[in-house]
């Protein structure tokens, strides 16, 4: 079965540094998402992306965050200047069409900000 892949599986970064989390969605999918889960808390929506632009974002997704699909296969989440509270599990997901199809999650990237 096709799958969404995320790299790296674990990233440790110093506070204030920029970090880029990478995702390779399923090849024919058109809608892409980032979610995060702070340890011990629920999974939270960050942003959705379609047709090379953000279609929806949550209040968590502030100016420190950006997303990009640089080459038609990767879908990246950049955090410009990481804070301790950005430490979380970040999940990428993709789906084929908007209506009535399911999305598939990657295995997640654990980000630790020290």
């Amino acid at each position: 079965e096709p799958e969404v892949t995320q790299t790296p599986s674990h990233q440790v970064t110093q506070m204030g540094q920029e970090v880029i989390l990478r995702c390779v969605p399923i090849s024919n999918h058109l809608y892409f998402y980032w979610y995060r889960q702070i340890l011990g808390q629920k999974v939270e929506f960050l942003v959705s992306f379609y047709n090379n632009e953000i279609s929806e974002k949550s209040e968590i997704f502030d100016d420190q965050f950006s997303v990009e699909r640089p080459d038609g296969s990767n879908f990246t989440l950049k955090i410009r200047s990481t804070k301790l509270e950005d430490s979380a599990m970040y999940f990428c997901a993709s789906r084929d069409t908007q209506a009535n199809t399911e999305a598939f999650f990657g295995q997640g990237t654990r980000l630790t900000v020290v």
Partner: protein
Amino acid sequence: AQTVTQSQPEMSVQEAETVTLSCTYDTSESDYYLFWYKQPPSRQMILVIRQEAYKQQNATENRFSVNFQKAAKSFSLKISDSQLGDAAMYFCAYEGRDQFYFGTGTSLTVIP
């Protein structure tokens, strides 16, 4: 707005016994997906079972089955013949037109 509620923060079950995890949701949409995800200590999100809302038949996947009550907006997970490896955090999730909505999770302990 869509919400997903898991009213059981923790559950425990004896090995080989059956346990049911509860989930309710609220939505005005008619077509959607529902999921149960398992999250072990590695924190990877592992899909356990999925249910399409337009299908009346309850989904089953080996020892895992759901009781989907669309009118009641209820989606419980039954784990039969529980195994030690089933111990994990379980999240119920609703997928609508725009995004996923997750419950707060139920921590399942399996007692040998």
